[in-house]
C-alpha cells in the first residue's frame, strides 16, 4: 500500500530541470533505496518531498496518506510524520546532544535518549552533555542525527547517504538502526550510490538525470546499476532518453 506518492514531479533550479516528470510510490512499512549516480537528483527529490526552502516551487503533486502535501510547509510535513536526515548534518553551537535529541522525542525521558544513542553505537555518558558542534566528527554527528530520527519515530524517514563519513566498524550499527526503524513501523527511504547500503533495502528506484530510470528488486537494480550506470560514458544521463520506468 502506498504511503507516499510522487506524481509527475518537475522541478527547475536556476533554470535547469532537475526533476523531470518523476513519479514513484513509496510503500508503507518497506525499506526503499533511491539510487543513482552523483547529480542524478536523489537528494533533490528528498528535499522536495520534505519541502525544504528552495524546493517548494514544483509542478506535479506529492500525496501522503491520500492527501496532497504539496502546499504544506516543512514543519507541517514533519508533524505529519515525514523527516529527513541530511548527508552532512548541521552543527549547532552550544546545543547539547541531550537537548537536540529531545526535540523530536517531545520531552521523553533520559532512558529513551540513552537507548537511541546506544542503538547508533554511541556511549550515552560520553555524548549526552556534549554540544552538537565542530568538536564532533562528521561521523559522530551523522550517528547523532540518526539517533534523533530513532527518537522521533517518524512515519517516513528519508536518510540521505546514511553511510557518509561512517567508519567500516560502525556501518553495521547504522544498518541495525535502519532495521529498528522498520521494526518500529517507519517507512525508510535510503538515498545512496553505495551497493552496501542498497542491499539494506527491499526495493529500489534508480534515478538518472532527474528521471525514474528503473524500479524493482535490489538484485535487479544493483545489477543494472553495476553493469550499465557505473561504466556509462554519459554519467547521469539515461542511455535511452525515451526510456521511462519499468518494473
Amino acid at each position: 500500500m502506498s504511503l507516499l506518492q510522487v506524481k509527475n514531479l518537475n522541478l527547475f533550479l536556476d533554470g535547469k530541470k532537475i526533476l523531470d516528470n518523476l513519479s514513484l510510490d513509496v510503500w508503507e512499512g518497506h525499506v526503499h533505496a533511491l539510487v543513482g549516480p552523483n547529480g542524478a537528483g536523489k537528494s533533490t527529490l528528498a528535499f522536495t518531498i520534505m519541502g525544504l526552502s528552495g524546493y517548494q516551487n514544483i509542478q506535479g503533486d506529492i500525496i501522503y496518506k491520500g492527501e496532497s502535501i504539496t502546499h504544506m510547509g516543512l514543519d507541517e510535513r514533519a508533524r505529519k510524520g515525514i523527516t529527513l536526515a541530511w548527508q552532512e548534518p548541521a552543527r549547532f553551537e552550544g546545543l547539547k546532544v541531550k537537548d537536540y535529541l529531545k526535540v523530536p522525542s517531545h520531552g521523553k525521558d533520559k532512558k529513551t535518549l540513552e537507548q537511541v544513542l546506544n542503538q547508533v553505537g554511541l556511549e550515552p555518558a560520553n555524548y549526552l552533555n556534549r554540544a552538537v558542534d565542530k568538536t564532533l566528527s562528521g561521523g559522530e554527528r551523522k550517528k547523532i542525527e540518526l539517533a534523533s530520527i530513532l527518537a522521533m519515530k517518524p512515519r517516513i524517514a528519508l536518510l540521505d547517504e546514511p553511510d557518509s563519513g561512517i567508519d567500516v566498524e560502525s556501518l553495521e550499527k547504522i544498518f541495525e538502526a535502519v532495521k529498528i526503524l522498520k521494526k518500529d513501523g517507519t517507512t525508510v527511504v535510503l538515498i545512496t550510490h553505495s551497493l552496501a547500503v542498497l542491499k539494506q533495502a527491499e526495493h529500489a528506484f534508480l534515478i538518472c538525470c532527474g528521471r525514474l530510470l528503473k524500479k524493482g528488486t535490489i538484485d535487479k537494480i544493483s545489477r543494472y546499476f553495476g553493469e550499465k550506470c557505473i561504466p556509462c560514458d554519459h554519467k547521469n544521463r539515461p542511455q535511452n532518453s525515451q526510456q521511462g520506468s519499468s518494473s
Partner: protein
Amino acid sequence: MNSVDQLFQYTQTDSSVLKDPEVAHVVLNQNKVLGQNTVPGLNVDLKEMKEGIQAFLTVEEGIHIPKTVHLCFGMMPEKGVQRIEMEINLEKNSRLAVLAHCVFPTAVDVQHIMNATINIAEGAQYSYIEKHIHSLEGGVKVYPKATVHLGPYAQYKTEFDLLKGRVGLIDIDYQTHCDTKSVLEMTAKINGLAQDTIKVNETGFLNGKGARGVLTSKIAVRDEAKAEIRNKLTASAPYARGHVDCKEIVQDNGTATAIPIVEVHNPKAHITHEAAIGSVDAKQLQTLLSRGLSEDEAVELIIQGLLS
C-alpha cells in the same frame, strides 16, 4: 525572609552558599552592604558612597581561594543609580574565582555603573563571571568599565552574561594589558530584545612575548534591538597569539554591527579574526523544522544554544 535572601533569590543561585563560612561573599543593595563574609588570604574593604560603593579586594601572595567568591550587586528600588568603584589586586601566584550576580529585578529606570581596576600579578589566576538578571521593563542602563593589567604568566578569564530579562542599554568598555606569556580570555553573551541597545568595546594589548588573548562575543538581537561590537587585539611582541571571534544572530528588525580589529606590530606575532552576522543558519533551522518544531521554537533553540 531577610533582606539578603530577598535580593539573592533573584540570582537563581542557591542561597545556602551565603551560609557557608568558607565562601566569601558581598551582597549590596544599591549603596548598602547587606551582607559580607571573607576568608583567610582575601582582604575585602568596602566603603559606602552616596550612590554606590567603593570596594577593594586583595588576594595575598601565593593564596588560592578555594571556593568561588559571590558578589551580588543588586538593586531593589525601581529607580536610581548604583555606582561601583572597584579595585582588585591579585598578588603573585594567587588564585581567585568570582561569580558576580547583577540583579535588577524591578528596575524601571536604573543605572548600574562599574569602574574597575584589576591588577593580576605574576603567575596569578583570576576568573570572573558576571551574570546579569534584569527586569522585563528594559529600564536598566549598564556601564561596565574595566582596566586590567596582567603580569607575566598571569591568567584572566572573564565572561559577561546578560540572558535574563531585557538588556535596556549596555555599554561595555574593557581594556586589558598582557605581559609575557600571560593569557586573556574574554567572552560576552548578550540577548537583546525589543528596543535594547548593546555596545561592546573590548581591547586586548598583547604586549609581552608569547602573550595570548581570545575575545569572543555571542550576541542575539531580535525585535528592534541593536548591537555594535568592537573587539580589538593588538600584538606588539614576538610569539603573541590572539583571536577575535564575533557571532551575532539577527532576527526581526534587529540590527547588528561587528568590527573586529586586529593589529600586529611584530612580524613574529599572529592574530586571527572571525565575524559572522546574520539570521539563524538555514540548515540548522530546517533540521529542527524537519523534526516538527515551529519556526519560532527552532529559532529560540538555536539562539539558546549559541548563548549557552
